């Protein structure tokens, strides 16, 4: 059916295609969660942004405090200590007691040391040329005052009070006034700097508020859009599900109506005495049994899907021989295939290793694939079942592959993902009046995954399809008893409808 080139192309585009399909599937399945994640990320981002903004504002305020408020406090201390220097000197003038005079001189020197250190510290921390110039001038004027102060103290201690007073009036007062003016100027400079920094902080905080408002508005907008998208996505999902369920109900009703109509008509004929001959009666009985069997299979299929979907099935996974599986599948689907005029061929590799799985579940899975091949096999009427080993995707360990290949109508590539969704029916199939429930392939896929395997499909419209069941190999062969397998065969003898 398919040439090798087509297979190669399929594999080549598989890497990116699979990734893209996986991403698309993830997004479509978890769109609400992803949106919520995005909203969460945006909120976290806004939080980080706000914290950064607050941190910047705090730093600015701290800088202002360190630069201006502390500076003002230091200047206040300098002014106080400078006054102390002068006060102690003047106190020394007021006494003739040499001991007290020495004590006042000592106090004056202690205070002037603090002032000198404070000025030096101010110079170290000065940055602007104006600050440096002012600091140097203050240092110079303070040194000049101290020179006069030392002379005044010496005169006082020598007992030359008049000379000390004269010296203080002519030299001490003017030089101390200069120091006071310098300190006032430094204070004014600090005031000015504090005012400028306050303006900067005010402007910055105003900008910050505007930024925050903008970011919050954007966040709210985004959150609203996300909520709308989530709601819409959920509504669309609900609508899609409802439509699929309606389609399913319609399809099932149709599937039920035909055999029921036949059964009713046959029963009516028998009841009305239209059928009298024994042969005819037997024929009518056969028709009723056939259609009753169809109904039972349909109901079984639906119940099986429901139990698989809800995870209620308990599989007994053990080592299985592939030829026995294929043989059971062939036997269980022979009637369907022969009735439709299909020839089913099997090509099994030699010495196939056993696989892990539940016998009846694996048979059911393959039967669904075979019945689908019959249903969509077109006019070519030939189905091929192959079994062979190959490397598993990912870890490249050996796995068993059992493929069912037909040469029918094929599947459009855009529908390859959807055919495994429950209740999905291709529009083309529905238009062609091919009946089905849309549960065959989802059921097969669920079984394959429950066995630790998967189902892959390669298809081309008008050429045909090949569905492959991938199963893990068994490490040790634990053969089932024949009776057990027979019982499975009996239970699953009736192959079932499809997607």
């Amino acid at each position, binding site marked *: 059916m398919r040439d090798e080139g087509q297979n190669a192309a399929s594999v080549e585009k598989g890497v990116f295609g699979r990734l893209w399909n996986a991403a698309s599937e993830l997004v479509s399945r978890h769109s609400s969660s992803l949106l919520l994640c995005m909203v969460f990320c945006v909120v976290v981002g806004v939080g980080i942004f706000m914290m950064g903004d607050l941190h910047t504002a705090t730093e600015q305020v701290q800088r202002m405090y360190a630069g201006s408020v502390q500076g003002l406090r230091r200047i206040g201390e300098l002014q106080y200590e400078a006054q102390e220097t002068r006060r102690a000197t003047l106190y020394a003038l007021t006494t003739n007691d*040499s*001991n007290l005079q*020495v*004590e006042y*001189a*000592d106090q004056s020197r202690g205070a002037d040391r603090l002032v000198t250190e404070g000025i030096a510290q101010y110079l170290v921390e000065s940055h602007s040329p104006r600050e440096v110039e002012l600091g140097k001038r203050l240092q110079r004027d303070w040194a000049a005052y101290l020179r006069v102060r*030392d002379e005044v*103290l*010496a005169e006082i*201690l*020598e*007992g030359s009070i008049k000379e000390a007073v004269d010296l203080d009036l002519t030299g001490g007062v003017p030089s101390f006034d200069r120091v006071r003016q310098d300190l006032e100027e430094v204070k004014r400079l600090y005031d000015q700097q504090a005012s400028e920094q306050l303006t900067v902080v005010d402007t910055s905080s105003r900008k910050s508020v505007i930024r925050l408002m903008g970011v919050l508005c954007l966040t709210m907008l985004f959150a609203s859009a996300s909520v709308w998208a989530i709601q819409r996505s959920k509504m669309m999902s609900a609508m899609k599900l409802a439509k699929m369920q309606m389609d399913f109900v319609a399809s099932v009703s149709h599937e039920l109506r035909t055999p029921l109509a036949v059964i009713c008509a046959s029963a009516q004929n028998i009841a009305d005495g239209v059928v009298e001959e024994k042969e005819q009666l037997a024929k009518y009985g056969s028709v009723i049994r056939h259609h009753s069997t169809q109904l039972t299979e349909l109901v079984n299929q639906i119940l099986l899907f429901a139990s698989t979907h809800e995870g209620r099935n308990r599989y007994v996974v053990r080592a299985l021989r592939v030829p026995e599986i294929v043989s059971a599948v062939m036997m269980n689907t022979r009637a369907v295939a022969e009735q439709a005029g299909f020839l089913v061929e099997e090509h099994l590799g030699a010495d196939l290793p056993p696989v892990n799985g539940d016998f009846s579940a694996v048979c059911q899975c393959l039967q669904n694939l075979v019945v689908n091949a019959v249903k969509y096999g077109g006019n070519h009427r030939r189905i091929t079942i192959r079994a062979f080993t190959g490397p598993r995707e990912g870890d490249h360990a050996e796995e068993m592959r059992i493929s069912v290949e037909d040469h029918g109508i094929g599947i459009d590539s855009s529908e390859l993902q959807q055919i495994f969704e429950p209740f999905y029916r291709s529009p083309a199939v529905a238009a062609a009046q091919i009946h089905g429930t849309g549960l065959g392939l989802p059921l097969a896929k669920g079984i394959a995954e429950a066995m630790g395997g998967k189902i892959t499909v390669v298809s081309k419209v008008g050429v045909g399809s090949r569905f492959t069941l991938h199963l893990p190999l068994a490490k040790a062969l634990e053969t089932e008893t024949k009776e057990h397998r027979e019982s499975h065969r009996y239970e699953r003898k009736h192959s079932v409808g499809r997607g």
Partner: protein
Amino acid sequence: MIVAAAVLLLEVSSGSAAGGASAPPAVPDDTIAIIVNQSNTIDDLSLKDLRTVFLGERSHWPNGRRITLVMMDPGLSERRAVLRDVCRMSETEFSRHFLQGLFTGEVFVSPKTLSTSVGVRKFVFNVPGAIGYLRASDVDSTVKVIKVNGHRPEEADYPLRIEVRASK
């Protein structure tokens, strides 16, 4: 090689010995140091010149600064030692000398009296022309100690000491 190393070792040893010898000797606690302001250029005074200064018979230093004499309170052992060894007077004679000298104009400087050694030291530190005395152990770097008769207080021939017997 061995000889050179031995010589070097010897030199190092002798150097360290010399260094040890250059360390200032301990000053006896009973020594009286004569102190002046750090800015004073005077380094050495004879006992005779010192007597002139302490009796107020000299008014200015060679650098032109007025001399300010600092004494400790009467009764203190340092003052007694200075009166005895420098002024060669009793307390009464010393007081009378200044009263008489100031009255006649023969004395130019009236002594300042301070009660503690710390006060004396701070006074001398603050007044460029001040001269005073302290126990050698009370001296620090804020004042300058001058030699007397060419001797520093730590030297054996230094003439100003508190009389031990008198202090007892």
